Structures are given as C-alpha cells and as structure tokens.
C-alpha cells in the first residue's frame, strides 16, 4: 500500500489538545487543584556522599501549619527483592532509597525528609528546621575515577562496577593486523540533563477508603502505579494514577521520585498533598543522563571497508545500578556491517543522581566516539565521509555484535538521502570575519526503539464520531498520531475521533511514553481497536440488510447495491443491537529500529572558540510518517538537544560533588537565538512489522548531532575535539597557539 492510498495518514491535521494548550486551559501536574490541599517541601542532602547520623524532625513537626513530616523510616520495611516495574530490574531497596535516603546519602540533592503544611511558605520554612547530621565520606564523580583501585565505594563490596556488558563476534584483534588503517581514540562526555521545562510535580490523596489516588506528570502512569504500590506494600489495584498533561520528559519522567513521598505525607495527614520540584531539585534530585569515557578502535582496508572494531565504554550509573551503558553497547557500531567486533561496557556507580534515560539513552555518547573515528578514517583514506559510510552501512541481514540480525532498515536510504540533499553540495560560504573558520560535518546514528504493551478502547457515537481512550501520556501530539491510525481504519476524518488519555483504572496496562513506542505500539492498538469496531459494524449492516457479506472500504459499508457511510450506520446502532465498542491490547515485538543522520555547517570564531551553527539538516527513517509535522518536530527537537549536548550543556561539579550550575541560566540549553532553522528530510522505509509501517521517531535524531558537529569543527579548524561539550574554552584550548 503506498502513502497515496491513505486518506488520513500522511496529512497534517491540528492536534486535538491544541486549543487547551494555547489558551492555558490544559492542566499540568502543578496546576491540579483539590479542596484541602496541603503543600509539601523536601529536605535534600548537602553532601555528595555521607553517613546520615541523625535526622531530627521535632522542630519542623511543631512549626505552625505543619500537618505531617516523613522520613525513610515511614516506608513499610518489606524484605528486599528484585522487581521490574518499567524501569528495568532493580532492587526495591534502591527504588525506596532513591526516593528517601536511608542510612547514607549518595549524591548532593538526595532526598532525606519531607514536610506537608497548610501553605507552601510554611512547608518550606519548616523543612529548614529539620536537623540532619552528616558524617561526610570521600566522593567519586566520574566513571574512570570510580573504577580505579581505592576509589570510595558507594554500596560497599569491592567495586563500583555494577555490570559488565560484553559482545563479540569474529576476531577483532586478528583483523586489525590485516587492516590498512587503524585508528584508536579516547573520548569523554559530561553528565547532561534532559532539560524538560516542567519540573516534576505530583499530588496524592490517600483516601479514607484505603485507595491511593495520584495525579502527576509522568511518562508512564502504570510505572507510577506499580512503583507506588510496591514501595507502600499495597496491591497494584489500591493505587489509581491519573496522568496530567506533561511538560516534557525525554526519558527523565520515567523514574518515580515524588509520588511515594506525597503518598506517605497524605497517609499521615489524611489530606491531599502536592509536591513540586524546584529547578534546582530537578538538576540535583532527578536523573540526568550519564557522563562517559569511551575508547574506540576501528580498522579499515585500503578501499574503506571497515573490517574490525573495538569499544570500551564506561558510563556513569549515578548513585544506583542500572545506567545506560547496555544500550550504548548495543548501538556503538550498529550503523555498520563489521565482521569482527569486541564491545565492553561498564556501568559504574558515582556520587551523582541516579541516571535516567534521555532520548536514545547511551547512544549519543557512543556515536560521538564511533562517528569521530569513522570521520578520521575517511580523512586518512581521502574518501567522501558519506561514501565511506554507505560502503559499510548496515542493511537487512547485517548482524549486530549483540546478537540480532537487522530486518528491513533504512540506514542505506538515510545515507543516500544525505548525499542527495542540496545541503551536502552547497558551498560553505565565506567566513563572516577574519578570525572565523567554517566547516561541514556529517554523522549517522541508530536507535532500536521498543515495543511494550498498549491498550485502546473506541466507542462509536450515534452522530458518526468516536471516542478513543488510551493510556499513553501525550508529550508531543500522540493523541492525534494515534487517533489518525484509528481514523484511517474507520474511514472517517480524524477530527471525528475524540482521543482521551485516561487513568490506570480506566484503560488496560500501557507502557511508558518512551522508546519511540507510542505512535508505534499505542497506534497499533488503536488500529486493532478500530478494526474491531469495523468488524462489529459490518455485522450490524449485515443484520440491517439481511446480507451474507458486507464489504467496507473508504468509510463505506456495502453489500451488493446497498451502501451506507460510517456515520449513517452509526446512527442506526440502537436499532441494530446497541452500543458498538471496539477494543484491543497489543504487546508488539517488532519495533523497527530507526536510522538518522545530520549534515552540520559551523563557523568557529578562532578568537573566542565559540561555535555557531550555520546550517543544519536532519534526515531520519520514520518507517511511515503518520503526521509529518510531528515527525519533523521530533527531528528538530532532537537535533537542537544534540546541539546543546555538543556545544554547551554539562553538569559542572566541584570536587565535593556540588553542581555549580544548577539553574537554567548557567546550565546553558540552546535558546531560539542559538540555532538556525533545522531542515528535515523524512525517509520512509516502512517497518514490515507494523500495520502502517511505523518505526517510531522520537529518539534516533539525537544520536548523531554531537558527532556531526564535532566533525564539522574538525573540518573548520583542523583540530579534533575528544570531549563534550565543545564549549568556547574547550575549542580555544584545543587550538592552542595554532589559530
């Protein structure tokens, strides 16, 4: 089926929640109001690593307006066990310990206690009266330092390494011996934050009937339900989570921080309690994504065929095990067909917040290393860098070192689209002043995307419209991209479908809005639920017409000469048997990985070291672009986050583990003035494992920008940078005296 045969898919209708979001009516987590609401405030660690000797809440509890105070001791002390509640396998003690520290604090900003009071001002003043006595311990802040002998140990034992991932195929050592060219380089990247504009917020009412009601900003309402019930030792059915609108997540709103604490405060006070993070809390108390050290070695023959590759990846886990190195190890060489590979990844504890996913988590770090080395190989061989990539590109049947063979993927098509793009052959133009130099860089990247369960229910209305309910919180227009897939099946315009994101009591289990899975998996559930609707309506038409077989195409039911539109038949529901409700649950395994690439033009001011992005083109395989504007939006957003990662963003830590730039002034995310228009080109290599060919587009677009910009800077100034961010002092230092 070609795109042109679709009526809805591939069009750009306005989003269903548009009016609410441009008028200020949409309710985000901190906007949610309740009668009798109490306001909470947290006490957070001022040390990066310390024994908690004493936490005295006496004075805070006596402060006027204070209704409840809680510490880690208020959690049910259930025996430890390993659970997988949507954040990967984790001991319950780690989930609980990250929410409120017990015995020891592991990072500056680690939550220790919380207060609920009748006003926010009273809660904040009372929190300051909580006395915490620390016995400071030496801290360790980078993966390399934490792996060294004698490093301070966060969780005892004899190492901070919590996991070693090893993938190998062929014999990379032997293959290097036969290579015409071998390049080995070491790279480091700083800790960065997802930077969503809405701080975490949650309101919890532990009701008098024993049920715990949660309203919060989350990427996964069922994850919140499962974590809250686990930490409070309740059955999952005792917790109802209503996801509010969510002001960005990018992976950082999968972990659960505030909800269990607000629940404890509500249980103690008997009233609803709201907790909201400050921006400082967000930086210091939620999960950034790992800083890393990577050593990548690649070998090619004289024709530019990559024949061997090795990677050593050490990623910060933060305060608890379970960082992003596993995904980094899966993606580091995924773009290339290389017969001999050895990949070692290490997940390393450091005294920073427990890391969280951030858009293709782990992959941008790895791609920065790989794509820099590939660029250097192309330069040494005097080959066009895209030609070299095309010669080695992964395609259907290529085996990855971590095991799977690619099914149909669009790596080749993405590279070819980059080669054919007018940007790639356009002149760079003259530098804007005497000290400026211009350069162009390219890079490609891969993200595998995920499946996970999704549920959808569609009720037909007598006026020919339908109500669609689903459980995927909508961060970027997915109400519409999901409804469009139902509309396509039902043969009606998408504005006749009213999508709603509902609470965990009202819809079947649905996985997180993450892993680029929502349009793919929840869209698939909507497709199947819509087919269920059509199946039932065909039976109604058959009954009405006393017909054996009813056909349905383009919104029209037909049997012989008789035909009726969807709306006409919907109007006859009550006389043909009552309501029509379609439903579906899916748990797809065939998430199609997405390849993406960038072409970046930069101008480097050799006087100041400042890099300006002159022109930026993002190319990505969407499989099928359901709503092209939203696909472009994902590509543009991922690109600009990648630009920030490349040029400015970093956790600037002092030796004591204090973040020195925990504000949006000093943690320097790109502004509208820092970037040009971001050109996009959508490639469509349909995913054979989805009814419409969707691959998922949320993440792969951030993988290649840092590397593409690094390669552009190298092209401009003749010097390669091996550390992110490549901020002005770093670029100036790299140039040394040779400008």
């Amino acid at each position: 089926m070609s795109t042109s045969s679709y009526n809805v898919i591939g069009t750009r209708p306005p989003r269903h929640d548009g009016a609410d979001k441009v008028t200020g009516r949409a309710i985000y987590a901190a906007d949610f109001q309740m009668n009798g609401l109490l306001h909470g405030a947290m006490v957070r660690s001022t040390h990066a690593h310390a024994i908690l000797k004493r936490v005295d809440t006496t004075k805070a509890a006596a402060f006027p307006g204070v209704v409840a105070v809680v510490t880690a001791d208020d959690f049910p002390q259930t025996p430890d066990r390993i659970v997988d509640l949507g954040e990967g396998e984790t001991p319950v003690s780690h989930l609980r310990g990250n929410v409120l520290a017990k015995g020891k604090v592991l990072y500056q900003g680690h939550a220790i206690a919380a207060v609920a009071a009748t006003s926010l001002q009273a809660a904040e003043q009372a929190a300051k009266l909580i006395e915490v006595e620390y016995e400071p311990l030496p801290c360790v802040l980078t993966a390399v330092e934490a792996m060294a002998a004698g490093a301070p140990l966060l969780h005892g034992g004899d190492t901070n390494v919590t996991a070693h991932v090893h993938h190998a195929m062929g014999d990379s050592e032997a293959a290097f011996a036969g290579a015409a060219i071998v390049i080995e380089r070491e790279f480091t990247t700083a800790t960065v934050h997802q930077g969503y504009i809405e701080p975490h917020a949650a309101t919890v009412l532990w009701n008098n009937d024993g049920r715990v009601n949660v309203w919060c900003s989350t990427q996964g309402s069922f994850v919140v339900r499962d974590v809250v019930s686990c930490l409070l030792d309740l059955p999952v059915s005792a917790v109802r989570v209503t996801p509010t609108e969510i002001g960005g997540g990018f992976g950082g709103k999968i972990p659960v921080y505030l909800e269990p604490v607000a629940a404890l405060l509500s249980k103690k006070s008997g009233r609803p309690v709201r907790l909201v993070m400050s921006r400082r809390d967000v930086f210091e108390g939620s999960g950034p994504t790992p800083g890393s050290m990577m050593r990548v070695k690649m070998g090619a023959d004289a024709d530019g065929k990559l024949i061997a590759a090795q990677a050593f990846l050490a990623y910060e886990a933060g305060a608890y095990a379970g960082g992003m190195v596993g995904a980094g190890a899966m993606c580091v060489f995924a773009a290339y067909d290389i017969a001999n590979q050895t990949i070692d990844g290490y997940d390393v504890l450091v005294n920073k917040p427990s890391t969280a996913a951030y858009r293709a988590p782990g992959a941008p770090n790895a791609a920065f290393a790989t794509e820099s080395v590939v660029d250097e190989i192309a330069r040494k061989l005097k080959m066009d860098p895209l030609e070299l990539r095309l010669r080695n590109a992964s395609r259907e049947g290529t085996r990855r070192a971590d095991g799977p063979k690619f099914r149909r993927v669009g790596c080749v098509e993405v590279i070819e689209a980059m080669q054919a793009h007018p940007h790639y052959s356009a002149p760079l133009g003259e530098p804007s002043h005497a000290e400026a130099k211009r350069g162009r860089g390219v890079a490609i990247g891969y993200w595998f995307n995920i499946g996970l369960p999704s549920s959808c229910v569609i009720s037909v209305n007598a006026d020919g419209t339908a109500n669609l309910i689903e459980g995927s919180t909508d961060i970027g227009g997915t109400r519409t991209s999901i409804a469009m897939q139902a509309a396509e099946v039902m043969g009606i315009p998408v504005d006749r479908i009213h999508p709603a994101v509902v609470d965990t009591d009202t819809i079947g289990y649905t996985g997180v809005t993450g892993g680029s899975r929502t349009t793919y998996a929840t869209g698939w559930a909507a497709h199947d639920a819509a087919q269920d609707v059509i199946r039932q309506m065909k039976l109604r038409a058959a009954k009405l017409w006393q017909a054996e077989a009813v056909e349905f195409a383009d919104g029209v039911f037909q049997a012989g000469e008789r035909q009726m539109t969807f709306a006409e038949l919907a109007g006859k529901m009550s006389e043909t048997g009552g309501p029509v409700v379609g439903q579906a649950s899916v748990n797809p395994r065939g998430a199609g990985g997405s390849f993406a690439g960038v072409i970046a033009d930069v101008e480097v001011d050799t006087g100041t070291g400042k890099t300006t992005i002159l022109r930026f083109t993002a190319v990505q395989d969407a499989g099928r672009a359901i709503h092209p504007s939203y696909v472009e939006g994902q590509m543009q957003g991922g690109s600009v986050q990648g630009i920030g990662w490349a040029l400015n963003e970093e956790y600037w830590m002092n030796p004591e583990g204090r973040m020195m730039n925990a504000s949006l002034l000093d943690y320097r995310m790109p502004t509208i003035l820092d970037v040009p228009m971001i050109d996009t080109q959508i490639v469509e290599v349909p995913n054979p494992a989805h009814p419409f060919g969707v691959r998922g587009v949320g993440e792969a677009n951030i993988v290649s920008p840092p590397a593409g910009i690094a390669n552009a800077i190298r092209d401009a100034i003749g010097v390669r940078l091996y550390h992110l961010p490549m901020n002005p002092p770093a670029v100036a230092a790299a140039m040394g005296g040779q400008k």
Partner: protein
Amino acid sequence: MKKTYVSMQLNGEPVEFLAEPSQTLLECLRDTLHLTGTKEGCGDGNCGSCCVMLDGTLVTSCLVLGVEAEGRTVTTIEGIAAGQKLHPLQKAFIDHAALQCGICTPGFIVAAKALLDQEPDPSEERIRLWLANNLCRCTGYDKIVRAVQAAAKEIREEKQA
C-alpha cells in the same frame, strides 16, 4: 506576616486578592487567583514560561512580587483569545505544530504577542532575539519561528482588510 490587600486589572476585569509579602505575582496568579495557564519552569527568570504583560510591558512574573501589581494591569495567556476566537498566534501555534508538550507555549505566545503588538513585521533575526528568554526543549524552535511569522502576516492582512 500579615497579608497585603492588592487590587489590579486582570485580563480586562478588576480583581482583588491578599498576597503574602514574599509571594510572587506568578504564585498569586496560580495559587490565589487559580489562573494556572502561566507556568513556572525555573522560578528565577531564565525560562520565560511565566511571561505576562504588566502595564503593557513583558515581564517574567516569577520576578515580580504580587504586591507590586497593586493598581496595575496584568494580561495572562487566559486573556489572549477574544472569546471563542483564538488570537492569530494561538491558531498559528496549532496549525504550524509549534508546540509539542505545550508547557512553554503560554509564555511564548504572550511574549510573541508583545513583539507583534509593537512590530507588525519583524525579521526572523528580530523574532529570535525577542524570544531568546523563552526556552523550549521540544521543538528546536523552527516551527515556533514559522508560527510567529505566519501570525504576523495574518495580523497584517487582517488590518489591511
């Protein structure tokens, strides 16, 4: 400390409320007056999510005290549409997919309106300079610039008609 009585014009209507001396205008709008369309992203004037108009001047309401609004005129995102009719900026943000999560959108629309009220035909450079205090983490800004350009064009054409 005792609360202070404040009266002001809010979105064309008189309002009265009590403010604690330390409460920001943003907190008064959201918590006391229950107009939650104005958002808090940072609390220190660096993200622009809380942009409102104060006596015709664009301000970040987290850096204004509630008591400072006494006798003054405040316009928030809730006062931008004309009844059922969306402002051209609001419509353009929807039509051009200039929002994803939407948390920064009220601030961008209020700030962009302040620009277009003064300068009906700003260049791309001017739009970017004016909106440099408003952070968006989802869109990469491309579609926001295009939405502002489209709205400016529509407003100019409406005036000519």
